[in-house]
């Protein structure tokens, strides 16, 4: 702070409060809407103050869903989302850290070739190769399964890069000392490299968990069985599922439940989240 200007600070506060209000407004409206009885949404304008039906709405959404439109109860979809998000996150971290270990700590033929194969995945987001990827998964019989939901998404160039960058900064002496003491590569990896990487793993975990939880197009394509619906794609089925106006009170209860887990992860692990975000993009 160069100079003290009370008026300037006041303006900053006003701008920020308006900004925060705009950012928070959509989710506020969703929470409010999820507490009202269905009749509120037939006419007039949406309410801005809480209604009396919160418990009832969440109970229906959690346990019954909208069976008529073919969406299962939220509790099932939340479980599916959690399994998918964790499988993607753990899978990505596990295969990336061992490939980075191989690339940094070994010299072997075709090393650079493999590095480029992994790098290519950065350039091929699922949206652009959607039809052929679907065909591959269908041919492998992985439709409507957790394997199909997670395995095609766990290759990760970004995580591999981050671990590679980090391993390059680990002092050479550590490895030399380990070798002198007779430790093999896997023992070195397990007892020295892995404990050193904990912060990086945690930061990536936050980013990857959000990525996995928020998957939309992929679950939409490969799940036709409501048993495997995830919550983020389930909302789309709820909005367009019936032929009438959506049941807003239930849709909004689902929206709140779908957004809550990743938002909580960010709020409680903000420092790790910012670290993960700024370092993976560098």
């Amino acid at each position, binding site marked *: 702070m*160069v100079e003290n200007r009370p008026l300037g600070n006041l303006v*900053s506060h006003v*701008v*920020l409060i308006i*900004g*925060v209000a*705009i*950012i928070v407004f*959509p*989710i506020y*409206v*969703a929470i409010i809407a999820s507490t009202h009885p269905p009749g509120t949404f037939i*006419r*007039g304008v*949406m309410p801005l103050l809480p209604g009396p039906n919160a418990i009832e709405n969440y109970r229906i959404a959690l346990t019954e869903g909208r069976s008529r439109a073919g969406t299962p109860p939220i509790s099932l979809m939340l479980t599916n989302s959690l399994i998918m998000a964790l499988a993607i996150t753990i899978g990505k971290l596990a295969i*990336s850290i061992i*490939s980075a270990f191989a*690339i*940094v*700590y*070994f*010299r072997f033929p075709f090393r650079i070739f*493999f590095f480029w*194969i*992994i790098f*290519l*995945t950065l*350039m*091929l*987001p699922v*949206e*652009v*190769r959607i*039809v*052929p*990827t679907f065909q*591959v998964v269908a041919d492998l019989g992985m439709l409507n399964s957790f394997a199909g939901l997670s395995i*095609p998404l766990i*290759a*990760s160039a970004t995580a*591999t890069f981050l671990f590679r960058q980090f391993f*390059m900064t680990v002092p*050479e002496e550590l*490895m030399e000392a380990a*070798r002198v003491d007779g430790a093999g*590569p896997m023992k070195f990896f397990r007892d020295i490299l892995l404990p050193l990487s904990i912060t990086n793993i945690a930061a990536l975990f936050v980013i990857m968990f*959000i990525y996995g*939880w*928020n998957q*939309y*197009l992929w679950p939409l394509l490969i799940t036709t069985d409501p048993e495997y619906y995830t919550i983020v794609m389930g*909302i789309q089925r709820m*909005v367009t599922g019936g032929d009438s106006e959506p049941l807003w009170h239930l849709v909004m209860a689902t929206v709140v439940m*779908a*957004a809550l887990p990743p938002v909580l992860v*960010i709020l409680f692990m903000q420092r790790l*989240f*910012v670290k993960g*975000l*700024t370092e993976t993009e560098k």
Partner: protein
Amino acid sequence: MQTKRTTFESRWLPYALLAPQVIITLIFFIWPAGQALYQSLLRQDIFGLRTTFVGLANFERLLADPLYLNSMKVTFVFAVGTTLLSMSLALLFAVMVNNMIRSRDGYSTLLVWPYAVAPAIAGVLWWFIFNPSIGILPYMLDMVGYDWNHRRSGTDAMILVIIAAAWKQISYNFIFFLAGLQSVPHSLVEAAAIDGASRTKRFWTIVFPLLSPITFFLMVVNIVYAMFDTFGIIHATTEGGPAQATNILVYKVFRDGFIGLNLGSSAAQSVILMAIVIVLTVIQFRYIERRVNY
């Protein structure tokens, strides 16, 4: 590419360690991308019985198709609108938060969480707020005499999806701008202040130029986001309508491939999109190399 000065010796271990990543990449990335390339050169008849090799005809047809050209235009408007809106608001918030001392962390927390909200959910939230019959914003717009209806008006629908996409992206841009602002040397700003430069002048002549590498990086990231990660927003709300007004390229690939079942055309569109991603990724990496010498 570097390794450590000393390395471990093993004939098979590095391959075993790389195997899971490489196998998944080959099966789910390289092979489908190859398939897309191959299929983009073929054409199937309506019943899917006969496939003929047609060379580049799919691409020629695509680039002469007014619907595809329209989709390119729509994507351009959408990407530019989303990028400008989210980056300018994020920069404004970051500058304001950076002025704060005690309340910096509080405001940051309140501004970063939308990153966690899935694009599809962001779409549904704004779709609800803009709902023509019960939404709060159309109600307010009606009072000033504007009849909002994103089901009939293509412009309204485009504004809706831009707002939803930008809302979600503000937090990302905010984090990077704030990090950039915090690395601007204090001495420069103080020297200018002693020379009598006002706050506004200091910002535009010193701080903003120092932020230009980050601004450029964010521009590329935001364009990539708007082009490829916003599928959920479109699919959960406007479904490309009304009358193709929000039919962005990634949504069109999906629609032509899975609903229209026009595999040749969809594959050709995939190939064009891959080319776009590759160009954008290369630009992004060139920037990273340059920033080292900045």
